[in-house]
């Protein structure tokens, strides 16, 4: 088989292009290179008798050059089979000169599009919040609608399931802050103040924040992906048409479950964080656990603990609302599920921190 698939012979009164071998997609670029440099004059003969197989790219290549040569010389085609001719006719019938429309996306296009869609998402979110509030209030007038079984299920999934990772992170954070401050406090001989420092910062700020961030990453993303997948498979539409409001069936159970379990998780994180701090204080400053707990009883005002716990339901509400809202924003393509899940986690962590800042400002104003 001729590896180049093409040979050009010049005769006195005409030129013949001898085609051979496979005029198929893998040889087409080679043939194309040979033909590119060739220009005919007077009479041209294409001889296809030695071609073993054609595919559509081979025929399209031939068609392109055939049209080109036809414009300035007499062309003859010989040696093709019936099947090849049929294929040629099929392709000729489907040759299109129109271009596939392409969407040009300039800078201004994307700025405009992003602005509009951000606004759109904002309006939708406000709308969504309204729905949730109404649905939530309706729970009180129709307590029969409360889906205890789902709520308990989600409490187990997002609450109990998160215990280990929350224990680990808060224990480590408790240890780390105590280690770091121990060195500084020891310089002033104020060793015992480590208890004040760790006690207040863990119960009031760190435990709620760590818990909320872990839960946002763990459960918020799961909510988005679950609801998003349900949207793609049209399960949500099916529920709606059967009269099962997704707000009651999907969102509120998750929200109530997390609003109950997040404060409990924060309490658990408090204990683990203090345990971590206790260990670090013992190792670094030699404060015994007995001393540590005694001091804590004296200095740690109960209000710090309660402030930490009270943040729980607020964070939970933010996480579930953002997670479920993002899930409902998923459209028909696979990329959007990834995009929305990322957005869900990023947004809920941001809003949890922003909400925490708001708490700090308000509570300071009120002198708590």
């Amino acid at each position, binding site marked *: 088989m001729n590896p180049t698939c093409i040979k050009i012979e010049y005769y006195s009164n005409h030129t013949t292009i001898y085609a051979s071998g496979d005029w198929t*997609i893998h040889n*087409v670029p080679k043939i194309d290179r040979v033909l590119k440099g060739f220009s005919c004059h007077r009479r041209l003969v294409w001889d296809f008798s030695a071609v073993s197989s054609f595919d559509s790219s081979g025929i399209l290549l031939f068609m392109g050059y055939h049209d080109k040569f036809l414009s300035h010389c007499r062309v003859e085609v010989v040696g093709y089979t019936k099947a090849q001719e*049929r294929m040629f006719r*099929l*392709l000729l019938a489907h*040759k*299109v000169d129109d*271009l596939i429309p392409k969407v040009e996306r300039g800078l201004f296009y994307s700025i405009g599009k992003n602005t509009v869609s951000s606004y759109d998402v904002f309006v939708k979110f406000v709308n969504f919040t309204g729905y949730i509030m109404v649905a939530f209030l309706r729970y009180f007038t129709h307590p029969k609608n409360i889906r205890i079984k789902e709520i308990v299920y989600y409490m187990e999934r997002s609450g109990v399931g998160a215990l280990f990772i929350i224990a680990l992170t808060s224990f480590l954070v408790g240890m780390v802050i105590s280690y770091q401050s121990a060195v500084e406090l020891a310089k002033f001989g104020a060793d015992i103040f480590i208890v004040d420092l760790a006690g207040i910062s863990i119960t009031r700020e760190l435990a709620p924040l760590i818990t909320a961030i872990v839960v946002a990453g763990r459960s918020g993303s799961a909510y988005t992906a679950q609801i998003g997948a349900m949207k793609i498979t049209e399960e949500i539409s099916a529920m709606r048409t059967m009269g099962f409001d997704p707000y009651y069936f999907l969102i509120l159970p998750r929200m109530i479950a997390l609003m109950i379990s997040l404060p409990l998780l924060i309490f658990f994180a408090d204990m683990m964080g203090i345990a971590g701090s206790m260990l670090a204080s013992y190792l670094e400053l030699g404060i015994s656990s007995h001393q540590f707990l005694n001091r804590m009883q004296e200095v740690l005002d109960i209000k710090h603990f309660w402030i930490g716990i009270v943040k729980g339901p607020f964070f939970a509400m933010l996480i579930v609302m953002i997670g479920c809202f993002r899930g409902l924003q998923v459209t028909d393509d696979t990329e959007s599920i990834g995009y929305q899940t990322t957005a869900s986690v990023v947004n809920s962590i941001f809003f949890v921190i922003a909400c925490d800042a708001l708490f700090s400002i308000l509570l300071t104003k009120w002198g708590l």
Partner: protein
Amino acid sequence: MKSEVIKARDIVTSFGETVIHDKLNLTVNRGEIYGILGESGSGKTLLLKEMIMLHKPTSGHITILGNELSNIDYQNAQKLRREWGILFQFGALFTSLTVAENIELQLKEYTDIDKRMRDELVKTKISMVGLPIRAGGLYPSELSGGMIKRAALARALAMDPKLLFLDEPTSGLDPIGARNFDSLILELKELLGITVVMITHDLDTIYSIVDRFCVLADKHVVAEGTLESVIEADHPFVERFFKNDYAKRRLEYGGR
């Protein structure tokens, strides 16, 4: 010329205790449209998946275009994958790419042909399956069910395959669309000499374009051959499927 494109011998597929296929045999010849028929749950799609190397049978041998699938190496498997085209039941177009990009993907990855030529090929395929050219710029989520099937067929045809697998090509299409799709497949088979293997429940498709087919039931191929010979087969499923009132009436009005 009668040569075998696909030969499946003694295929056994089981999941734990559940046996789906029990020593199943079938043969597909070059240049024919071969149908696979069977009840829901008889393992048709699984059989197709085994042929296209998405699932390994528990035991048995499948030979496709001269390649024995049970001990094929990576290189040959990749080569074989370029020689066939597959139309999945729900299209399975890549949702992040436009229709044109979906069709172009294999051309771009596996060949050196230039952009101009690729565009030319893509446009021809789009037109061949009966889509308007502007559909090339659309994303799969913007297409209707029938258009998705056509676009997916165009993608399956991108590399000019010798072998085409179709999973329920006419399901979800309206009757007219389904018949058009049938004649399109027939035309492609006749003009391009493609061998087609399809899973179908569609009586009209079986009567009008399928050359030979097999019936899967009770974990076996209970009948294989042309319509005339399969109808003769003595099996409850064949009875139910071909000897009901609708099928009889359909048969009287003639096949081709």
